[in-house]
């Protein structure tokens, strides 16, 4: 059992929200009042259990990074980018930057697939355009990144710069609620242009409102393997537990991918109660773990698995439920959420008081009439899994292309207004202005409202979401464009739902002049390889097609939706042959 942590009247809820102005006020409270309680457990690779880290040890550890940053001249409100593997050190570094009033931002870590040189160049590009004052890096990166940034004036530090000893926490800054707490970035060339800047006030508003929606309790325990450069991992799997004072059991995404049972064992061993997962993880864990690896697993303490960050499927829930009910999974423990970094995280939450609604609607109604209505006269139907109702500080409306509100069950763009919204895209007022309309954030998602619940039906923007990670097709297309043999400007990337995996897979179609099969094969191979090295994305299919195959819009752009439809029709025909 973990040591009891926060008294119930000390959870940050809408009632107690005014007691804290910044994240540091909450950290100082836990440090002073419950120094020996368990703040977190980090499970190292290959292990099922990890060392317990108390609030005192955690914030003292963060203090070492705060001192190191001050030591190299970083001031309050300076941006600090963390280029670190998913490790305890990353956790300390993030809170160390916060502790001295700087603005931390976590950069996705170099994976086996990515090309290291390109990766470092991307770090440099982000540092340059964001005006970062310092980088904190994992030790193996110190030399490369110091060399690359030596004329930039940016200080690069790693564990080697820390003073020996356990460090000391200190929470005195001039930071107030309106100051930026941290930035969240999406990955890829396009995503890195948009650093979502969140104020302390916005983050605390989210933490408080979401606690109400989740009916959070002092004895909750959160378990997570999610990466911290992503909003779900950063907020639900790191910031919320530390701010609330409830224990976090954390493992790395690399660990979970290789050994998915580690999450289930952690939930069992530490009596986890809350766990956020993207939809594909339900399929993955339902099908990729052997029965004999589940010996001793008991999920009876989990009151909510929260499905979030990519389109949710009722079928994924069914698979997970079938597999894990024999292991104690409670009926009603599978819940849903709609979230985005621009709103700090959650917009809606479903399934806490009662199981999430499944709305069965007419497919032609949705596709042709843009309305979510019951099927008539034997029409084909589709199941829509509710995202739940807006959390207390959020409002949701559905708008048409002229931004006028639509009625119940009419399909339109989802717009969100809340007090946990981004302050701006960092140093990009132009992008901030485009994204907001009269205080409403236009999400780029299509959906409808029915009896107060939100359903997401599709996407206005061309973004592809794989395993909860946003991928911008234009990044992939520009890589394909550089492959010899591809007709310039004639590449299109799009996502296709893969029901087996429970997430989207990515397809690329390119035009080429050559008719030679071997040359086309080589073009496809080069595209796959370059896309993997530059973006980490594995393309599920690469089609090299004849010239003039691709549809263009009237303005001469490649039409992703129309080409996706054409691809799917051709593929279905091939499968029938």
């Amino acid at each position: 059992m973990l040591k009891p942590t926060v008294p119930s009247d000390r959870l940050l809820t809408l009632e107690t929200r005014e007691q804290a102005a910044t994240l540091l006020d909450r950290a100082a409270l836990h440090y002073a009042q419950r120094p020996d309680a368990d703040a977190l457990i980090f499970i190292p690779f290959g292990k099922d259990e990890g060392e317990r880290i108390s609030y005192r040890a955690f914030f003292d550890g963060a203090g070492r990074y705060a001192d190191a940053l001050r030591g190299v001249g970083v001031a309050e409100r300076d941006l600090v980018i963390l280029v670190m593997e998913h490790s305890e050190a990353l956790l300390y570094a993030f809170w160390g930057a916060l502790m001295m009033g700087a603005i931390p931002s976590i950069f996705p870590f170099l994976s086996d697939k990515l090309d290291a040189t390109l990766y470092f160049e991307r770090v440099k590009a982000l540092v340059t355009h964001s005006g970062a004052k310092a980088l904190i890096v994992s030790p193996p990166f110190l030399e490369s990144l110091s060399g690359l940034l030596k004329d930039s004036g940016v200080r690069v530090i790693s564990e080697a710069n820390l003073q020996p000893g356990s460090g000391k926490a200190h929470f005195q800054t001039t930071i107030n609620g309106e100051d930026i707490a941290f930035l969240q970035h999406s990955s890829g060339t396009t995503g890195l242009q948009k650093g979502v800047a969140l104020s302390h006030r916005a983050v605390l508003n989210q933490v408080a409102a979401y606690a109400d929606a989740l009916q959070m309790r002092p004895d909750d325990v959160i378990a997570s393997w999610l990466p911290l450069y992503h909003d779900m991992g950063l907020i639900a799997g790191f910031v919320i537990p530390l701010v609330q004072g409830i224990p976090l059991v954390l493992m790395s995404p690399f660990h979970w991918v290789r050994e998915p049972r580690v999450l289930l064992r952690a939930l069992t061993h530490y009596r986890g109660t809350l766990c956020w997962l993207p939809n594909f993880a339900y399929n993955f864990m339902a099908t990729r773990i052997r029965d004999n690896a589940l010996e001793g697993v008991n999920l009876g303490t989990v009151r909510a698995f929260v499905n979030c960050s990519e389109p949710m499927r009722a079928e994924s829930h069914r698979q997970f439920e079938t597999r894990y009910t024999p292991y104690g999974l409670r009926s009603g423990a599978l819940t849903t959420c709609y979230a985005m970094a621009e709103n700090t995280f959650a917009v809606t939450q479903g399934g806490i008081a009662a199981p999430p609604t499944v709305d069965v609607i007419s497919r032609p109604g949705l596709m042709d009439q843009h309305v979510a209505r019951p099927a008539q006269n034997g029409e084909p139907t589709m199941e829509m899994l509710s995202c739940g109702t807006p959390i207390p500080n959020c409002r949701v409306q559905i708008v048409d292309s002229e931004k006028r509100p639509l009625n119940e069950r009419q399909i339109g763009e989802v717009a969100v207004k809340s007090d946990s919204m981004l302050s701006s895209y960092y140093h990009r007022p132009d992008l901030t202005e485009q994204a907001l309309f009269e205080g409403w954030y236009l999400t780029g998602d299509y959906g409808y409202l029915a009896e107060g619940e939100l359903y997401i039906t599709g996407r206005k923007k061309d973004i592809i979401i794989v395993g909860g990670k946003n991928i911008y097709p234009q990044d992939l297309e520009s890589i394909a464009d550089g492959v010899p043999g591809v007709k310039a400007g004639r590449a299109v990337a799009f996502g296709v739902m893969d029901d087996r995996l429970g997430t989207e897979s990515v397809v690329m179609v390119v035009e080429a002049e050559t008719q030679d099969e071997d040359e086309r094969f080589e073009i496809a191979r080069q595209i796959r390889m370059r896309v993997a090295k530059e973006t980490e994305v594995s393309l599920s299919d690469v089609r090299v097609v004849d010239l003039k195959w691709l549809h263009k819009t009237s303005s001469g752009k490649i039409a992703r939706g129309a080409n996706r439809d054409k691809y799917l029709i051709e593929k279905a025909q091939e499968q029938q042959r």
Partner: protein
Amino acid sequence: MSDWNATRDTIRDFLLTKLIRNPRLKLGDTDPLITGGLIDSFSLVEVQLFIEEKYGFRPADIDMTVETMDTLKQMVDYVEANRPQ
């Protein structure tokens, strides 16, 4: 046919039909699978399950990495070196 070739054909068939899902793709023994963008690292768990089911031993989690499992040849060598006699 030698054991090695038979194992190669079996694993190649599995990769092409179940993971890459393109049986017509020409997959060479040393073509990079993960770093070449043909499969992602999530797929290694499926490779691990397949080897366990087909060859009667469970590859260690620590061996299921890009360094050790990035080509068909690496997978076949691993199975041949570790399968129960």
